[in-house]
């Protein structure tokens, strides 16, 4: 029987004799990884999402927004490939914020991510991790838009 965690009640948990804690923020190295995972997670979507994207694509093409259309089609193609991996993306997003005791939180380590996910998979229900990712993605997407706008207003080049 799998245990079900509640991250709103406790930010720490044990699994396989190992201690884990949910962090509120992440290092920049992990933020870089998060951006890629958000794309995977966001675009590995269901058919309803695909229909919505097709409507946007239709409007873009009617407005001759070819670059926007190309980006959208690219993401939809990627999303279809990744359709089976949605759960995997969610767990990876959660793993960026959930650290094992003694883990180096300043870096992103793919092997460590897989190790943590394997550990959780043996004892824990996946649903809270999925819910955590669902709650993290909109907040961090907004944060990313905010910082991207700032960085585009103040270009780094030559600083």
């Amino acid at each position, binding site marked *: 029987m799998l245990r079900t965690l509640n991250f709103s009640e406790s930010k720490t948990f044990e699994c396989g004799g190992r201690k884990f804690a949910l962090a509120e*923020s*992440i*290092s*920049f*190295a*992990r*933020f*870089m990884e998060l*951006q*890629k995972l958000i*794309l*995977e997670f966001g675009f590995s979507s269901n058919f309803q999402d695909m229909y919505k994207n097709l409507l946007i694509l239709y409007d873009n093409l009617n407005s001759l927004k070819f670059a926007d259309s190309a*980006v959208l089609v*690219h*993401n939809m193609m*990627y999303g279809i490939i990744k359709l089976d991996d949605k759960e995997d993306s969610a767990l990876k997003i959660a793993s960026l914020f959930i650290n094992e005791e003694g883990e180096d939180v*300043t*870096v992103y380590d793919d092997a460590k991510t897989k190790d943590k996910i394997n550990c959780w998979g043996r004892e824990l229900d996946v649903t809270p991790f999925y819910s955590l990712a669902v709650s993290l993605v909109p907040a961090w997407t907004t*944060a990313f838009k905010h*910082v991207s706008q*700032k*960085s585009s207003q*103040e270009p*780094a*080049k*030559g*600083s």
Partner: protein
Amino acid sequence: MIEEADGYWNEYIYNICEGDIKNMREMKKMDVFEFFDYVQNKMKRKKKNG
């Protein structure tokens, strides 16, 4: 797009650190909010100093 994300940020950090690899590694280890505060302060200083 996904593949481009790393390239974008690596170039961004490269420019901020003026190619100093050690500094680039340290910047990536910063908390993300600390990182953007650092970048903003550096830009403000740059503007102030002309």
